[in-house]
């Protein structure tokens, strides 16, 4: 078997890894932001009970914050179970429960990845947003900015700077996680390499590491550059 064949097959496989990577990033970042808002939600429909009653039970009910509870439970479930299992669930559950089987295994993988990474990202975003001093919000308020203006013009740029290191971590993990697509026979790079292994050739499998290393090397350089670029201010 020629080097050419192996190289071509692995590169093709890695293309799929890159696709999963890109689609996950593009979908999980906005989704994660949404989830982080949910987990910071102060919406309490029974808050008024706190004022009108001293009964312990009613006061407990007044603490009920449905949006926050739902999103935090979601984050707990997603972070608390293996991504591999989640891929299986997304692929098989619609067919088993609603008789609406997912036609494409790739779609199942993309959905599972987007949801999984949104949960992790949301916690990073929440940390970043909650870490911005209250004075920044108050300054925006007294300057008559709307909540949206304050968030997008003042808070978010500072959050971006703060979360680069943890996001870098998570994104590098994502690159490697993409090979989990293999469990539902999506022909990503490792699966491609295993085909050669079955024919008695082990080198392709080991060489897949080079692809990941190079890709993550580039990402590391990128995050280093980004961090430097935002180094023009402190705070």
């Amino acid at each position: 078997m020629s080097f050419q064949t192996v190289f071509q097959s692995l590169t093709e496989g890695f293309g799929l890894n890159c696709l999963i990577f890109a689609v996950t990033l593009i979908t999980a970042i906005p989704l994660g932001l949404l989830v982080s808002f949910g987990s910071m939600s102060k919406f309490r429909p029974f808050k008024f009970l706190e004022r009108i009653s001293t009964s312990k039970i009613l006061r407990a009910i007044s603490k009920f914050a449905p949006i926050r509870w739902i999103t935090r439970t979601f984050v707990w479930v997603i972070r608390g179970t293996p991504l591999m299992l989640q891929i299986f669930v997304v692929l098989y559950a619609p067919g088993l429960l609603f008789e609406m089987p997912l036609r494409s295994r790739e779609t199942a993988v993309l959905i599972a990845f987007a949801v999984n990474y949104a949960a992790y990202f949301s916690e990073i975003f929440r940390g970043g947003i909650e870490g911005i001093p209250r004075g920044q919000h108050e300054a925006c308020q007294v300057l008559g900015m709307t909540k949206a203006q304050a968030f997008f013009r003042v808070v978010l740029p500072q959050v971006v700077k703060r979360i680069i290191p943890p996001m870098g971590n998570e994104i590098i993990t994502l690159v490697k996680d993409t090979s989990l697509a293999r469990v539902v026979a999506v022909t990503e790079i490792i699966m491609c390499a295993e085909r050669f292994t079955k024919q008695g050739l082990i080198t392709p499998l080991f060489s897949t590491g080079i692809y990941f290393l190079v890709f993550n090397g580039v990402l590391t350089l990128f995050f280093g550059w980004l961090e430097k670029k935002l180094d023009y201010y402190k705070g």
Partner: protein
Amino acid sequence: MAILEVNNLYKSFGKTEVLKGVNFSMEQGEVLSIIGSSGSGKTTLLRCLNALEVPTSGQIIVGGDVVYDSVVQKKPPKEDQRRWQLSCGLVFQSFNLFPQYSALDNVMLAPSLLAKERPDYKANKKQIHEELLEQAQALLNRVGLSEKMNNYPCELSGGQQQRVAIARALALSPKVLFFDEPTSALDPELTFEVLKVIRELAETNMTMVIVTHEMNFAKEVSDRVIFMDEGLVLEDGSPEEVLVNPKNERTRAFLGNFQK
């Protein structure tokens, strides 16, 4: 007509009553200093007057507009609250500049966001921006920072940061400008340059309320001084009356600490 009127203002946090019926009013161009020990409610009062806290009850009138009245409603609607906040300016103890923007952009940000709401914004975008830029430059010039316009807050001293914050508050042309212990985070030398700016503002007929521990400055710059204690205005009069010949025992005790 009074430019600021505070009637029977109460504020509690849970069971702790911080403001217990504050009353005062001030005229256009007046400079009012509020003194008092920590925990006397000075900062809470300022935060209530800037809609950062919702008072428990009372009435606030700014420039003839009733911006808050607990009899009418517990909390004003968002749009009204925004208009209220735009009519007042607040300079914080800890500056709270936006770190990712240069001094110039810190001053320009809020006015340029506000300008987008003008009906003629789309047509005169360039001209409006030009005007705002000129205004911001003039303001930074006025606080003595024309050399530092393009510097970021982290590159400025505390005194310079506070002067940018003053320019930023002035950019929205507030009817009343509030200062919350503007020099408490600064050393004496930097304090001097900030107080100089406030002094110059006083000469331009700007209406100002200054919460301060700088007694000499209060004496020199204010038209009136209020002494607050335990959520109440105990003394209200000219600097001479309050700082030199206080009637109240509590005021005398407080001021005695500064003569030691």
